[in-house]
């Protein structure tokens, strides 16, 4: 093989069949694998949610044993976050970052492949733990000791799975950061690159800063469980609450890891369908950075009920409230982008609009929770469950749907079925609100979270929520149908799929060829 040939890998033969996927160093292949993995995990964890909701349809124990219920809750949370949402965003980054930057691929294609293939290993460990004696881990996705110290084999397996997923995230993030910092087409300065790249740049930074901290926290759990250390045991001078501090030092930035890429996707979509440039690009960048920086100093708002000193309580309350300012800037900028645009409402835009509106509801309930005295009433109730599903489902998940509809034509070369897409949208928005809106009332009225059975006065709202969950859950089969149909065929998509779309990804043909930008593009503007 000559060196010249190496510089033009497009002219090589590639392994086919399964080997193509196992050995691939192509960002598009890897992005595709991430997205399929995420979808499988979404359906698995979603099925767990449907089981949870079925048990909660009426008071009393009907379907599952309380311990199994806790296993479902724990795995639902862990798999949704680490298995569905994060890999989906990484899938978007893999597909779009090189295309948007005019780079031929990610900076480290082999490492990229490894980052992906660690995930199925971890997913396997988590899912198989249901089959082990004692069942899966049942201590909540937050893994608080001493409860998490009590369990059996699955708890160790879960900890190691978290390690592996963390490793995958760190390597993936190093790759994305390096790509963004070092692989931009000549002339594409940082302040000119698409918003999606900015949000991922900052997300990757958050990941690199916090994933190792999570690794440290669960390592201490592992040694407390198995090697006789006393990090979280007062008899040895440790403190169970210390785990919570370390966990949430990771955990709070983590929730912005789950939303910043969503902000990025929405910031691509809204200008396209408003046919108007993104309003306040620079302030968007600064807002994103401020959110990231603030996210490191607010963690203890998850712990207002542990009994912190007054000063700490006040500090964390104020700093948390402050995050509403940069987030508000983003919301206002999106509205201003739509203002006096020339709007059309294709499915990606519909999801993006719903995102702005419903995410804000979730943000406001977050702000209510940020008030320490009010949080003391609401901590560990369904109000919190309502809050984070508004930001995670109608936030993160909706942005993923929006992004898929937006870029699928670019990836497959076919237009999706607009009618089915709209049907999916409407059922999802309606279903989503039926599931999660009543949960606010449940929480206010005093229903704790993570319980398999409840007092009689909570019955009606739980029944409504369960009905909504089935509407929402089964609407996702429509989504699956649309995706499969689009891959199989459909109207041919042009290079610039959307009339108002701007950016390098729209200059390459649809579907995007296996190798793009082997020679750096020349920017027209």
């Amino acid at each position, binding site marked *: 093989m000559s060196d010249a040939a190496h510089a*033009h890998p497009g002219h090589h033969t590639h392994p086919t069949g399964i*080997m193509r996927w196992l050995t691939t160093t192509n960002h598009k292949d890897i992005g595709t694998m991430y997205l399929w993995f995420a979808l499988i995990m979404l359906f698995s964890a979603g099925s767990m949610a449907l089981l949870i909701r079925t048990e909660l349809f009426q008071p009393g124990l009907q379907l599952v044993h309380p311990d199994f219920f806790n296993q479902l809750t724990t795995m639902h949370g862990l798999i949704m976050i680490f298995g569905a949402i994060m890999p989906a965003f990484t899938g978007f980054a893999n597909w779009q970052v090189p295309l948007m930057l005019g780079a031929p691929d990610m900076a480290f294609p082999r490492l990229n492949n490894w980052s992906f293939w660690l995930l199925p290993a971890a997913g396997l460990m988590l899912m198989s733990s249901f089959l082990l004696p004692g069942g899966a881990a049942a201590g909540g996705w937050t893994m608080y000791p001493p409860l998490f110290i009590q369990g059996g084999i699955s708890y160790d397996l879960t900890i190691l799975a978290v*390690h592996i997923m963390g490793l995958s995230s760190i390597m993936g993030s190093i790759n994305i950061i390096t790509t963004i910092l070092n692989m931009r087409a000549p002339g594409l300065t940082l302040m000119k690159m698409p918003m999606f790249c900015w949000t991922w740049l900052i997300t990757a930074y958050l990941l690199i800063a916090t994933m190792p901290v999570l690794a440290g926290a669960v390592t201490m759990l592992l040694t407390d469980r198995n090697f006789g250390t006393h990090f979280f045991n007062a008899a040895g001078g440790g403190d169970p609450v210390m785990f919570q501090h370390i966990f949430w030092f990771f955990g709070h930035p983590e929730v912005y890891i789950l939303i910043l890429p969503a902000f990025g996707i929405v910031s691509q979509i809204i200008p396209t369908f408003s046919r108007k440039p993104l309003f306040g690009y620079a302030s968007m960048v600064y807002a994103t950075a401020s959110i990231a920086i603030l996210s490191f100093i607010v963690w203890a708002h998850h712990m207002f009920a542990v009994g912190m000193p007054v000063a700490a309580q006040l500090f964390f309350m104020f700093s948390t409230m402050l995050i509403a300012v940069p987030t508000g800037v983003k919301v206002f900028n999106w509205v201003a982008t739509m203002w006096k645009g020339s709007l059309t409402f294709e499915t990606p835009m519909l999801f993006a609009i719903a995102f702005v509106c419903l995410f804000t509801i979730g943000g406001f309930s977050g702000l209510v929770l940020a008030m320490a005295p009010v949080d003391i009433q609401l901590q560990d109730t369904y109000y919190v469950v309502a809050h984070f599903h508004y930001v995670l489902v109608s936030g993160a998940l909706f942005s993923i749907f929006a992004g898929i509809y937006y870029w699928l034509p670019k990836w497959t070369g076919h237009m999706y079925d607009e009618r089915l897409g709209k049907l999916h949208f409407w059922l999802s928005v309606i279903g989503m609100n039926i599931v999660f809106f009543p949960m606010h009332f449940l929480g206010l009225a005093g229903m704790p979270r993570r319980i398999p059975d409840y007092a009689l006065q909570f019955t009606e709202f739980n029944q409504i929520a369960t009905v909504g969950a089935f509407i929402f859950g089964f609407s996702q089969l429509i989504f699956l149908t649309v995706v499969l149909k689009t891959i199989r065929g459909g109207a041919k998509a042009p290079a610039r799929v959307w009339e108002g779309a701007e950016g390098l990804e729209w200059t390459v043909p649809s579907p995007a060829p296996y190798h793009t930008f082997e020679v750096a593009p020349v920017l027209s503007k």
Partner: protein
Amino acid sequence: MSLAQTGKYYLPQPSLWPIIGSAALLLMAVGGVMILREIHNGGWVLLAGVAILFFMMFGWFGEVIRDSEAGRYNKQVDASFRWSMSWFIFSEVMFFAAFFGALFYTRVLSVPWLGEGDTMQQLWPGFKATWPTAGPGLAAEGYQFTPMVAWGIPAINTLLLLSSGVTVTWAHWGLKKGRRGQLIMGLAMTVTLGSVFLGLQAYEYHHAYTEMGLTLGAGVYGATFFMLTGFHGFHVLVGTTMLIVMLLRSIAGHFTAEHHFAFEAVSWYWHFVDAVWALLFILVYWLL
């Protein structure tokens, strides 16, 4: 803005190594859990995983070295390596930060809480919050240990590591000026210093376990002591191994004065390990 483009990018071929690495980690995790839960043959599963991991590292790094020697890495790739190594070290810093955070939290907050007010009166009567401590429960059971003092082996180790930082820099100067003798000499000295450090550390651990009653189970002091110094020691081990590889590659004549990022990466890593030790020495050993 990124580097001036040469117009061509370097793209590696499809590779089997990553999937092999995933299999290795899966086996290691499963084997590790089997050992912890006393399931038969866990040791073999773990060993298989480790063996495969080493096989993968040899293969993968070998490929990278061959690509590098064939001159396929242009300036852009070099810059990517620099960025990625910096971010990797940052992630390591954050990993240690978790444990330093635990040390800070217990020393400054939770141990004092255990020894005052209602917590002490109701739950741990008579407990005096001092540092180092094995904690109120273990103290009540009569658990005793001797803390590690700074001015013995730890002080010597500090000297060793600090001078190894100097020798590796000296080696780097040699490399930049094209003095291969100095390069090899400097690397050899660094490797020696690292190895002696590890030997002393092993001796210190042995002493702690057998004679001082200082174990992982010796309350938060023991836990933070061994986890911090242990993870650091592990990093020294990895660093020393990488330095040995650099030494062998230098002897094989791999690096040029302009093109030697692998060497630089290892020396960055070594300096990072050095800096962590300095913190450890002050916070874990010295300020008792």
